[in-house]
């Protein structure tokens, strides 16, 4: 992936609505109409977000008669995995800090005079 398309992936992911749309599409494919209802947005607004996601290569459309259901592309699936990895990372960073806090508390235990 060159840095230009990487850039468009990150700007596509910068919007919380677009991330929520990706999360929804991770479950199953959906049409603009099916997406507009749960997100409580107009169909043009959803289409606009989908265009950004499609241009970034995260979402692809399929032709099914009159329907144009969207689904995650392989890059979209990778991006979802990356999000989860980042959430894990943020939590794991917290718990590594907690490990240090616990080690300090253990060394000092039992606490003297500072109990409230």
């Amino acid at each position, binding site marked *: 992936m*060159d*840095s*230009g398309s*990487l*850039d468009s992936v*990150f700007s596509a*992911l*910068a919007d*919380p609505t677009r*991330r*929520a749309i*990706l*999360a*929804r599409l*991770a*479950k199953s494919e959906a049409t603009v109409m099916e997406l507009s209802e*749960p997100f409580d947005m107009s169909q043009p607004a959803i289409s606009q977000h989908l265009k950004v996601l499609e241009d970034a290569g995260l979402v692809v459309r399929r032709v099914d008669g009159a329907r144009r259901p969207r689904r995650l592309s392989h890059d979209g699936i990778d991006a979802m995995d990356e*999000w*989860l990895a*980042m*959430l*894990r*990372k*943020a*939590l*794991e*960073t*917290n*718990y*590594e*800090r*907690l*490990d*240090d*806090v*616990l*080690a300090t*508390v*253990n060394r000092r*235990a039992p606490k003297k005079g500072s109990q409230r």
Partner: protein
Amino acid sequence: MSQMTLKTEGDTHVVVTRRFAAPPAAVYRAHTDPELIQKWMLGPEGWTMPVCINEARPGGNIRYEWTDGKGRGFYLTGQFLELRPYSRIVHVERMHLPDPTPDNHVETTFEPDGQGTLMIMRMTLPDAKTRAAMLATGMETGMEASYVRLEGMLKSAQDAGAHV
């Protein structure tokens, strides 16, 4: 070091597990003592929690405020429902971004595990869509860190003449 696990369960749950090398009482205290919470519940590097209210009793309030020190920040409010020292905490929480997110119902248990503790945090969201949005939003702060890294990556690609 013990691996953390994070997985979705059914349509509305997220379950996080983690082992700690300290007894349940110590891990429980680290979740209910504001002074300790401010030392670890911080997210990405550089963020701090200047406000930490944690009234660890049924009905007691929770309020955590985070800042990156550069004018960006968000906060979380919640209430304790049940506390059983030193084994179980049940509370509800919501993020304010600044609009409040739907309530996340969280049960955290601390079980003895050898010399240490197995913590299991089970979150319950109102519906599948809310859970998807939470997983997406929860990554926002992590995303910030990755944007900084991305900027660095793009810059070195440019410096190397790889960018057209």
